[in-house]
């Protein structure tokens, strides 16, 4: 009765995003994105590249949240905590041993995954609102840790980070980091799509629709949720590692609930359960938040209006309608 389930009327589990029309659209979108990303470093200045790098980090964060909310249907609000863990882990490893950057990014992702698995073990006994509140509390507690563990994070003074390295080459500016950020984002995007299309992905969606039904089919719902939670945490940790590639300073202030909400907004406005929705949402809201950084009050009002407006008039997000129509046409064709 008091259920907080996600998007019950989502298109059928198997339907996913496989209509041929949107597949070719995806190809065009990918080709266009690749072209833009290729030309970009030769045409724009450092700040624009910084913003693009940041957007990539947001894309990976949104993909991670997509895994746990969109695929597994679990409403978790601790994403920023794992993002922070990724940032600090990678930052510390870079400072201590100067390994090739992918080692430190991987370490951050792994640590996040392990912690995510443990937190998931505790939190996923609950569902709906309780899960949301428990993960929210964990996120806030982690921000407190970041703010107070001065030996590691510099506390409220923030922390200067050593530049990431790759076999002796120091990544000291946005341009140098850019190709690696792009590659990592592409890799994470590919992983998400692969996960979504795999058997594992359909099991997750089965759990999302009804964990009882999924269990009746022999799916271990608990283990599925928990692994999805860990994978999502790993994505956030890796996004944190990517962040260290092009920035030299981190302050715990930016690792609070509002960042989780920002990412949640990206996923929901993009369309819960849709990979392209997560990507589009990340780019749109990443841009809005960066462009309006100077005008905090206006940013907040605009945000508020967008959130309420979308929930009122387009609650399934930008990319869900097309799926629904696609699902409906497939059903219609099947009936004929």
């Amino acid at each position, binding site marked *: 009765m008091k259920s*907080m389930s996600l998007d019950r009327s989502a298109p059928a589990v198997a339907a996913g995003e496989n209509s041929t029309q949107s597949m070719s659209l995806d190809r065009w979108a990918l080709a266009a994105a690749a072209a833009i990303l290729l030309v970009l470093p030769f045409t724009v200045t450092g700040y624009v590249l910084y913003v693009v790098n940041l957007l990539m980090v947001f894309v990976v964060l949104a993909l991670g949240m997509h895994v746990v909310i969109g695929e597994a249907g679990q409403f978790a609000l601790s994403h920023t905590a794992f993002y922070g863990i990724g940032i600090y882990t990678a930052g510390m490893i870079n400072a201590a041993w100067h390994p090739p950057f992918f080692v430190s990014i991987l370490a951050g992702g792994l640590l996040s995954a392990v912690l995510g698995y443990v937190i998931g073990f505790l939190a996923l*006994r609950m569902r*709906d609102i309780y899960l949301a509140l428990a993960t929210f*509390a964990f996120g806030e507690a982690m921000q407190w840790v970041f703010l107070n563990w001065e030996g590691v994070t510099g506390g409220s003074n923030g922390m200067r980070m050593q530049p990431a390295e790759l076999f002796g080459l120091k990544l000291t500016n946005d341009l140098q980091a850019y190709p690696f950020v792009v590659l990592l984002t592409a890799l994470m995007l590919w992983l998400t799509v692969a996960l979504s299309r795999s058997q594992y992905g359909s099991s997750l969606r089965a759990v999302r629709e009804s964990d009882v039904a999924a269990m009746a089919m022999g799916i271990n719902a608990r283990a599925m949720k928990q692994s999805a939670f860990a994978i999502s945490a790993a994505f956030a940790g890796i996004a944190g590692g990517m962040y260290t590639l092009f920035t030299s300073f981190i302050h715990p202030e930016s690792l609070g609930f509002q960042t989780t909400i920002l990412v949640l907004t990206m996923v*929901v406005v993009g369309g819960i359960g849709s990979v392209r929705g997560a990507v589009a949402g990340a780019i749109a809201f990443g841009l809005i938040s960066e462009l309006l950084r100077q005008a905090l009050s*206006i940013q907040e*009002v605009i945000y*508020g209006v967008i*959130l*309420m407006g979308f929930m009122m008039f387009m609650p399934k997000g930008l990319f869900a309608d097309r799926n629904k129509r696609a699902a409906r046409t497939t059903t219609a064709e099947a009936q004929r």
Partner: protein
Amino acid sequence: MRGTLTSRNNMSLSDIWLFLQQGVLSGLVTGSVYALLAIAIVAVFKTTDVPNFAQGEMFMIGGYVALMLLLVAGLSYVVVIPLTLVVVAAGAALFQRVVMERVTGSKGVGVQLVIATLGLAYGLKGLVRQTGLGDTPRSLPSLVSSDAVLIGDAALTRLDVVIFVVAVVVMVLLYLMFNKTRIGKAMRAVGMNPRAAQIVGIRLSRIRMMVWAMSGLISALAALLITPKVLITPDIAHIAILAYAAAIVGGFTSLPGAVLGGLIIGILENLVGLFISTNAIVVAPFLAILVTLVARPQGLLGGKPQVKKV
């Protein structure tokens, strides 16, 4: 926090006793305000299935409406208090009627409802910042003197006593409303089983509007109570986290639980501040939430754990 009496390392027994009294009494005062906000959260959740993430902002806007009426419009308290209550209650009812009805109507569930309230939270915060009133921390002039009142060995101010008494009176009134009046019973009925309530002739949308109005009223009242005591900024909305902790500790669907939870969180917060460190106060509510949810997810008075029907 008033607990800078001795260094914390070598506390004598009498110090501990003093701290304990002080912590519990101060905790009851702030806790009663958290309890009010927790009641607002629980009442809205029970009747509309919405965990209101804008609860803190509704509280904050109460404080700023009062500030604006007092300082900018120059009205007197006699006008300001009822006007603030009415404005915030009407605003909350309007939000339910215009936004939430629509989100629920368009098959929005769970996430969508939460995000709509987050939208409200952002909107309110942005609006207050736009006015410029939020740039410097302010507080309302107090109606009561801040003379000390000694209870046992602990010292409270008169304002503290007034806050506690008013909060308790409001709780009693709410109790009477929920148990004796038709409207209150209708609210409870909607909370228990909306469809059945509708069948026996209760108009859902009207009751839900009224619950939101009531939560707005309580929020504004809490703001009026606490803002003479503390400085407010737009970020005071964070106080809702404590109210959330209170609601969870009490059991998220229990109104008496919300009161109990509020008092517990208030006392806990003060004791942590006195005995451990003021720095740890911030994290105390989250630990309370985590411990409750892991050890006893249904909270203290939440009854049986809820099982979702398939």
